[in-house]
């Protein structure tokens, strides 16, 4: 896969992931071009487009378009299901995901994508395992938080404890 773009019906880019080295201006140009092309498609048209020497595979979920550019020999249908699996992962993690979740928690959307696809290839296709990895990361943060909280309590108690003797 060369890149993945998530954008709204208004053409606002919500997530961009690039798996090939490109300059910022190239990325902007490509995004504009692809978004324009995909938004011009009517419903019921096929989900695949020839673009340059690559293929664009896209699918619309509610207000969001998910769009991948893949190499010419890549399998279109399986790419379509890559998109779907990613949507499932987001959905499961956020609980009925909507566009706003991705806007406000964009960093999470990136983390989930990184667990699922790396360097443009599927890394782990099991939904359970991907979500477990993300949850574990979330837990790691929580443990540390509670850990610090405990530490505070401890310090507090020591201070309180020593208080009467003063």
């Amino acid at each position, binding site marked *: 896969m060369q890149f993945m773009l998530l954008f709204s019906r208004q053409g606002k880019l919500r997530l961009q992931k690039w798996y090939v080295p490109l300059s910022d201006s190239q990325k902007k140009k490509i995004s504009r071009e692809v978004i324009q092309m995909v938004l011009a498609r009517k419903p*019921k048209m096929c989900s695949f487009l020839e673009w340059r*020497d690559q293929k664009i595979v896209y699918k619309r979920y509610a207000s969001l378009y998910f769009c991948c550019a893949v190499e010419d020999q890549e*399998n279109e249908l399986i790419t379509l299901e890559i998109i779907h699996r990613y949507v499932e992962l987001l959905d499961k993690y956020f609980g009925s995901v909507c566009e706003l979740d991705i806007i*406000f928690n964009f960093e999470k959307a990136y983390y989930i994508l990184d667990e699922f696809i790396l360097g443009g290839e599927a890394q782990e296709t099991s939904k359970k395992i991907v979500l477990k990895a993300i949850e574990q*990361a979330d837990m790691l943060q929580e443990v540390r938080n509670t850990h610090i909280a405990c530490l505070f309590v401890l310090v507090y108690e020591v201070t309180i404890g020593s208080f009467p003797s003063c």
Partner: protein
Amino acid sequence: MPAVSKGDGMRGLAVFISDIRNCKSKEAEIKRINKELANIRSKFKGDKALDGYSKKKYVCKLLFIFLLGHDIDFGHMEAVNLLSSNKYTEKQIGYLFISVLVNSNSELIRLINNAIKNDLSSRNPTFMCLALHCIANVGSREMAEAFAGEIPRILVAGDTMDSVKQSAALCLLRLYKTSPDLVLMGEWTSRVVHLLNDQHMGVVTAAISLITCLSQKNPDEFKTCVSLAVSRLSRIVSSASTDLQDYTYYFVPAPWLSCKLLRLLQCYPPPEDGAVKGRLVECLETILNKAQEPPKSKKVQHSNAKNAILFEAISLIIHYDSEPNLLVRACNQLGQFLQHRETNLRYLALESMCTLASSEFSHEAVKTHIETVINALKTERDVSVRQRAADLLYAMCDRSNAKQIVAEMLSYLETADYSIREEMVLKVAILAEKYAVDYSWYVDTILNLIRIAGDYVSEEVWYRVIQIVINRDDVQGYAAKTVFEALQAPACHENMVKVGGYILGEFGNLIAGDPRSSPLVQFNLLHSKFHLCSVPTRALLLSAYIKFINLFPETKSTIQEVLRSDSQIRNSDVELQQRAVEYLKLSSIASTDVLATVLEEMPPFPERESSILAKLKKKKGPGAVSVNELEEGKREGGELNGGGERGGDGSAIAASNASTPSPSADLLGLRTGPPVTAAAPSAGSLLVDVFSEAGVNDDGFLRDLEPPTESSDSLLAEGPGDSDSAPPSVVSEDPATPLPESNELLNKFVCKNNGVLFENQLLQIGIKSEYRQNLGRMYLFYGNKTSVQFVTFTTTVTCPGELQSQLNVQSKTVEPLIEGGAQVQQVINIECLTDFTDAPLLNIKFRYGGALQNLTLKLPVTINKFFQPTEMASHDFFQRWKQLSQPQQEAQKIFKANNAMDTEVLKAKLLGLGMALLENVDPNPENFVCAGVIQTKAQQVGSLLRLEPNAQAQSGEQMYRLTVRSSKDTVSKRLCELLAEQF
């Protein structure tokens, strides 16, 4: 599931995002962002050390702003700091920022690599994965240098966690793609291959992508993967739909892995081992059988996953092209899909059938679907599906159905979408030629093409019809008659006029017996179109006229009249005028014999591959026209054109181009024929003889005969095939000599630091530079504008002559390979030792499609880059001005303004120069004065400048007087030279 973002919710971030979303206008958004950027900047610069949380929050905000499409030029350091935080989410945000805002700022890269190194050796799998993800996301050469040795070890180590192995495999893949020279598998090869046997399906899924890529490059070393892949595939295919638990997707067992296994097998020929092969064929049969089973779910995901495997299996069957039974079954299966209600499946079936059509085993089976495909061409609502249908019709075309298919395509052309017309035209032209049994059909078809879609008929197409008519004398009379009739239409396309002019000029005599098409009627018909045509066509018509004089002496006076008219002989277009003059002279001076020799009928063209085919190949990109098709084209085309020898792919384009040069290609130009270099002199000398007798200057004719120049771009335009015709780049012979325009390019950058340094049809070089004190850093961006990779790309920066001791320039080596459309960056560090005049030279060498490109430019490093502005009051300025009063310290120039005298523009340029622009110093407010100090390692050179515009000089021209004074005479002189070019 957990409510999101608990634990590490960043309230400030959420508030900021809401604010942005509530902005009513783009301006409001930019205002809000600028406010936030100022805030973050002050926090980062503040004295108070930020805690990890705040740092994370601000870095995340910056990231958000960047992703909105705004530029971010700070915060990298803070992000790098986060990498070494021991709090997971801080580290995570740091890595995300680095991954998204890759910036090969060399100092940072070192710090980033250090942090990654620490995490990789932390033995904490979560941290290791984060670090690996970062490498895979950035994938830069620096990272490959640092980690390409370490990652294979992690990948195959026995104690590595599965998740880390998965990340390591894909990380390595990414590094291999960017820097294949640095990723050496060697001793690891067999252990990597054996990952296909890993019990963890996730590990296999990740590893197989790496193995596939490595196998494509080194098939022999990895060939043991074939039997492993087959047995893995067999286990998956024969498993029940629930066996693989979480790797079953909508009742389809491991669809991703299955597709990847089938793809891996496509890197190899069919297995030689009978048992392995038997097992594989069994798998493929099972997959085909499953397609006939009723679906286990109504969900589209189920059918997509199942069909993804099916299509991949069909690809493998086509790749092997050795199992007739499987090929025919595949074809039947695709036939069912042709009428499926899912548009996606119809599209893919058409696409896949295209490749099946080229196999001798399935070609006939594909042909049985012709009616369905024609129907698709007519009724599909989606243009991309219609395009596939057109492709398939083209692929399934052979002698038996050519007339039907060409007729259908022609009728489709009348209503076809503009986007695909040109390609359709090319296809029709190729099919008509390839399968022509009688040439009248061919001529009819091409003339129809021009009539229906004249605008889309490229030069190759009409060149080709002429080549064929010239070579086949049995069709010449018919062609003349048909084109004569076509020209009767009141409005006919210019391409028709070109073909008409050419053919009648050659073979008009064949129809001249009929009084309805007598010579004068022919001439008048052609001439009636003359005034509506473009210059190249008119030029061609003039050549046709002179040929008429030879063919039909009775038209001589009429034509001479026309040539003599002011609109010809005094035409403002130099080409037309020259032709008129020369043809007129030729017709009046040369004897009939000489005339007959010069204007003899065109000799047959040497046989060669159709340039149209080459054009279609180019249009569709490599691989779109299969080798089979080409071979077939050659075979059958050879039959058609008398089976002469054909040139290789590359020379074909060049040769056909040479034979029909430039839009002003004309009868005489064609005479040279390919190979142009050999033929041109002889033809040329013939003409020289003629004209030396006649005493006419022969320049014009010789020029006609020269190989095409810029006007033939459309044909010569880059493409992998035409290596013979050197791409039209600016290539200087001597690598040490910079391009002639490099001084001009240098001048462009005196007052600015960023921009495009150089651009031609292949390469674009962008530049970004920054200077501080006597040091500078320059980023060069080499962009490959073509779709073909540049190989052995090397650049050298040299300081010629005494510059060596004045500047210290160090450049990093740049990656030797630039993929089509990609860009690579090079960093150059510059130290100014003492003042200097010349500019360093940048030499660039690379191979493009086999041809060596070599160009030398001047790097825009000029002495003023090392200026430090100096603010001073009026009194100080004049005092110093007086101090620098020795004659050699001053340089002065009076010069004409090249541009309008716009105060704001002038100010901007002077500021760009690097000096301080001093207000209220000069008593005359029109004048500009500046002050600055040039920083070199050896010394500092104070410089003062005064620019006096004179909008109404006596001469009526706008003039400037520029005076520079500085403590060193060479500096004054150089600054004066540089600046005089700027205004």
